[in-house]
């Protein structure tokens, strides 16, 4: 069946609720309202208010409550309404969810998923557009998963729900309804920790994930018209990162451009550049480029289109890697 990303997320939740009574789904407005983006639409009617329910308006409470459910042995899937509000849940994620497996000497698995839409270019108010994946990737014990298509959104979410570690699942808000593709019914998983080669190429590797992934693909199309063959790697999971796929691709192409919407400084792009430096430096024909958001707070709506990486920015960066002397 053809589904967009938000429908794929809804379907994944339905499959998980259907197959496993330990799965519970909750968050602000997820019950009757079906979530402000309808990711949990109709789930309460179908599975009952004891399994799909509203919480008080409290992000730390939601995350901490999920930790308790997971410590007990249920499989909570909680929604944080906007990624920017994850700041309020940082202590429960970083100091609690991430650390309880080690703190308990391995006895507790905090098998929980915290879903949140992230990313901008949809003219939202403050703190509704941020990309915080680096904060969570810097926290050992957490996994950070960022789908980019309806197919991988469903498969990754089902894998995250079955993963024994706490997963922060960041969904690309502006892609929620931009396109539909074939998404199989029923349960299937896309493994965590594995990148996918979204497009094969031989001249340059464009590494991206989440909302920036379609931008990377569009850039690759344009470059193709110019006779440049760009390979596009979609990380899918940001932590743990799939170093082998990245390194193998860069060894093949000799050039790399990393694209993400989050601020550049100490971001996922910096980690990828370091990885390439450690493992593929001598394959490089040009310095690795980064196309990222500015090192500013997420900007006000009138200029946000300049903050979010565009196809043209990616194309320009790729061209620079092809002709480094002309920079």
């Amino acid at each position, binding site marked *: 069946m053809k589904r967009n990303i938000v429908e794929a997320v809804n379907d994944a939740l339905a499959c998980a609720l259907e197959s496993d009574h330990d799965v*519970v789904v909750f968050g602000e407005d997820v019950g009757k309202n079906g979530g402000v983006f309808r990711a949990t639409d109709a789930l309460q009617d179908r599975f009952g208010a*004891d399994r799909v329910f509203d*919480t*008080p308006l*409290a992000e*730390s*409470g939601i*995350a*901490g*409550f*999920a*930790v*308790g*459910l*997971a*410590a*007990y*042995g*249920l499989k*909570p899937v909680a929604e944080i309404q906007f990624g920017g509000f994850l700041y309020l849940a940082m*202590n*429960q994620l970083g*100091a*609690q969810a991430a650390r*309880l*497996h*080690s*703190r*308990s*000497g*391995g*006895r*507790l*698995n905090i098998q929980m998923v915290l879903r949140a839409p992230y990313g901008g270019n949809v003219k939202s108010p403050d703190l509704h557009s941020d990309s915080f994946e680096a904060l969570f990737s810097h926290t*050992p*014990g957490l*996994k950070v998963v960022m789908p980019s298509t309806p197919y991988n959104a469903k498969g990754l979410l089902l894998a995250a729900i079955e*993963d*024994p*570690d706490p997963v922060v699942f960041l969904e690309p808000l502006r892609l929620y309804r931009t396109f539909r593709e074939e998404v199989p019914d029923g349960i299937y998983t896309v493994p965590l*920790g594995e990148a996918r080669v979204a497009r094969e190429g031989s001249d340059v590797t464009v590494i991206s994930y989440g909302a920036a992934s379609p931008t990377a693909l569009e850039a690759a199309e344009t470059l193709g018209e110019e006779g440049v063959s760009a390979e596009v790697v979609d990380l899918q999971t940001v*932590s*743990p*990162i799939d*170093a*082998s796929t990245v390194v193998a691709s860069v060894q093949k192409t000799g050039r790399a451009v990393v694209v993400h919407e989050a601020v550049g400084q100490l971001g996922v792009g910096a980690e990828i550049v370091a990885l390439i430096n450690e493992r593929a430096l001598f394959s490089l024909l040009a310095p690795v480029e980064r196309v990222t958001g500015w090192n500013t707070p997420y900007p006000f709506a009138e200029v946000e289109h300049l903050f979010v990486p565009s196809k043209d920015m990616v194309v320009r960066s790729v061209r620079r890697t092809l002709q480094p002397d002309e920079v």
Partner: protein
Amino acid sequence: MVSLADHFKEAPPDVFRPVRLVEPDGSRAEGEVPTLDEAHQLFRWIVFGRVFDQRMISLQRQGRIGTIGSIRGQEASAAGIAMAMEKRDWLVASYRELLAYIVHGVPVESIVSLYRGKVPGPFPEDVRAMPIQIVIGSQMPHAAGIGFAMKYRGEDAVAVCCCGDGATSEGDFHEGLNFAGVYKAPVVFFVQNNGWAISVPRERQTKSRTIAQKAWSYGFTGVQVDGNDALAVYQVAKEALRHAREGEGPVLIEALTYRVGPHTTSDDPRRYRDEEAVKAHEGEDPILRLRLYLEKEGAYREGLQEEIEEEARERMSQAVEAVESAGAFTPEEMFDLTYARATPRVEEDRRVTLSRLSGGASS
């Protein structure tokens, strides 16, 4: 006619009066007391708690364990709540409730090992307890979740969540109690109000007249108890657990006790409090009170306390010996415990570290 000014008046005086069953001189106050058997068991635990505390502090002074917070004077609160619990109930608590962990079935070795800076080793399978919480107040939403989960599975069990007076100022205290209230989760919140959060006295922590009254704003019951009266804590805790277990909703217990020692072995209370004020609390010692009670009831055998102390010292020595003679903590465990299955990055850290330790090429 009611004037607007009437709406702005101070709230009426609260009705809280701490439950007390035994006076400091050992005589009985009003109310039904636990059996003498239960009183004896409580006496054993609080005497054990005192010896445990002394031994842990001396181990710290000798550099054999790290920083530790004293539980001296608070033994009745911790033992009272934990002894009222069933084996199937969850304990969700912090470092000021070490005795509660032991009463609930966590081996002393686990605690010594943790303070020695080793991977603590998991609690035994049949002990339902969250690891000792260090981040003040963070455990409150966990208890709401555990309580909810037990209700969801139709289990006849309760989550007991302990914290101190300082924790009541944390946002997670509010969020945890609020969630438990909204879901009518079987949770007993137990606040040991020992008067101090390091150097900040209780009255600078909240303008609420009592901590127990906060329960009202979450729509459930709050009770104050004399936290140095082991029998009263036990009795109140039993009733609170029954209440939560039978689906009547959460309960907040405020146990009034006093931190006679420093916050931890790293703290010097002379900087911020008058030690004369501390002396005023010495007459409230829970061990003395319970012994006087047992004597008055004709249920105290001469030398009993000394016997229990001797047994406790032996138990402590055994535990310390077991922990100190156990193999050295290896970094391997850290790599094993970060994720359920180590990620490639963690594996790489392991490889590099082990190679460095064996003087290998990557060192």
